[in-house]
């Protein structure tokens, strides 16, 4: 049996991005004002694990760190087909940057036991650092391939994967255990089905707090985060209305000039 861990994150619904506000004091996203959903690229990570489970005898653990509200997305992973869920939730974990998040997740993965592959979405839709996957690998001392767009061979202890580059791809051979961060090109995530939701009723979500991980409070959460956010601002897009006047030909010429000036054409 191969053991797969999928790291998943609860993010503010990207479809309601316009409603996300920033806390001016802590300079963090005010996540509670927008419904939390499964990070879109983590769905691709889940799908990768689920497709492997269809081919091999595999056990999937969905692992997330977040507030208690994040249990919903872990439950969703169970409904999609994960075998167990683990939620790392403790006030001490709050305010973690990518480094502290990766450290906490890596500690939990080590506690889970022998793992063959850790899948992560390439980035989260809120933080978008793309660091958590590689840093998990660093803490666990495992090889990492970022931006995996295809799993070419997955039999035996060495897998071949295609990883995206800006103008092409790298074909990589990797010794397991390894960490992969995945792109949306890797697969099409399956939809939730009703029977999956019913099956998830019997699956367990374990909650681990700081004491369960046995890590010092200084190493996790805001205290364990070397990143200092000096400023975080929202951008405002404003539209201006301008009524063009003149004959049809004059208005067309004015419009064309404006489009050229603004770089549209």
């Amino acid at each position: 049996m191969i053991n797969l861990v999928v790291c998943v994150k609860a993010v503010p619904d990207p479809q309601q991005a316009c409603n996300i506000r920033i806390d001016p004091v802590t300079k963090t996203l005010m996540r509670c004002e927008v419904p939390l959903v499964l990070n879109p690229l983590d769905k691709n990570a889940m799908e990768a694990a689920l497709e492997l489970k269809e081919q091999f005898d595999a056990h999937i653990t969905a692992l997330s760190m977040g507030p208690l509200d994040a249990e919903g997305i872990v439950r969703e992973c169970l409904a999609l087909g994960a075998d167990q869920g683990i939620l790392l939730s403790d006030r001490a974990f709050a305010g973690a940057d990518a480094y502290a998040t990766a450290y906490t997740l890596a500690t939990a993965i080590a506690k889970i036991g022998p793992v063959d592959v850790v899948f992560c979405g390439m980035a989260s839709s809120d933080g978008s650092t793309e660091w958590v996957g590689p840093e998990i690998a660093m803490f666990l001392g495992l090889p990492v391939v970022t931006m995996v767009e295809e799993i070419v061979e997955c039999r035996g202890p060495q897998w071949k994967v295609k990883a995206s580059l800006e103008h092409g791809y790298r074909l990589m051979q990797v010794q397991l255990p390894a960490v992969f961060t995945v792109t949306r090109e890797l697969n099409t995530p399956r939809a939730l089905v009703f029977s999956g939701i019913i099956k998830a009723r019997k699956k367990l979500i374990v909650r681990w707090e700081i004491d369960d991980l046995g890590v010092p409070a200084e190493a996790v959460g805001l205290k364990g985060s070397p990143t200092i956010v000096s400023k975080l601002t929202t951008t405002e897009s404003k539209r201006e209305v301008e009524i063009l006047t003149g004959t049809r030909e004059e208005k067309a010429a004015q419009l064309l000039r404006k489009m050229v000036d603004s770089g549209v054409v």
Partner: protein
Amino acid sequence: MIDFTFTEEQEMFRKAASEFAETKVAPKVGEMEATGEVCDEVVKALGEAEMMALTIPEEYGGLGLGYTVRLIALEEISKVSVATAMMLQVFALGIEPIIKFGTEEQKKKYLPALAKGERLASTAVTEATGGSDPTGIRTSYRKEGNDYILNGRKCFITNSHIADTITTLAKDNENPKAFSTFILEKGMEGFKPTREEHKLGMRGCNTGELAIDNCRVPGENLLGEKGKGMRVALSAIGDVGRGGMVGCALGLQAACLEASVKFANERILYGKPISNLQTIQNKLAEMKIDLEAGRLLGYRAAAIQDKGGRSSNEFAAAKYFTTEAAQKAAKMAVDIHGGYGCMEEYAVSRYLRDSFVLGPSAGTSDIMKVIVARWVLS
């Protein structure tokens, strides 16, 4: 204390239904509108997504999820396509009498395939001479050996041309006060769909006539007790039929509101989005209030139904309110869109056409008031 919140699991069912509607139904709406035909891919997708299995007990291959989840699913699908929600709601209308009144043999024979979507269901009560007053129907049966011979013509039957299993109400040839319900199957000699209707709205949901001409129906296809078929037919229509229409109406109300908010925020007049205008805000507020009130009526009735209580009166009130509100919302949505609302590129023109089909289906608003008045006076 009354808890008006949905459970986390119910929210997940809503999400599943919403994702299904957006990914499998939405891409086909244009085709359904253009052709008016049922989209086979949508029907197949409904089956694969286990939508027909919602209310069928687990021991017969269903999910046994009950009526609140059914309402959730219908609302989400109707937000994208009222026609698809209508088709789905009538599948359940054909299935329910078998669940409630079928013998063990009938349940084992029909329900597993209906749950998988391998067979499709409908129900046939309405005729030119009786729909709201089903005692006026003329389709008749007479006993011949172990079989029954049926004759008649059904009209305005949803899923008439795609259904394989149709629960059909008929009148005793010798006793006009006795009615029985039979399971008719596609391909039975003397039973066939004939005229297909071209409706104002809900294009892509099939409605038509069924001709029953000396159709020999085996005795084992009698559903429920002989002579007590009116109860079989009406109990399904009262709870499942009206409940389904509430789901269709709620989805349409929500779609009207969402489209209106989007348009009102984008449409600039006098240098500002029209959502800044109080006259537009009034319309949006009315739509929102009606939607919230409709949800309270509908989901309360579904909760009663899930507890095994009689919910037909509550659903009559909810059906009246939500289908009327859906028409009102569609009219306001078109008004907010101005000239664009009359263009087919904008979904609100479809919403308006669809809203007018909600009213008569499973009983007109006037009939709903008759039922509610009877409830009040009883």
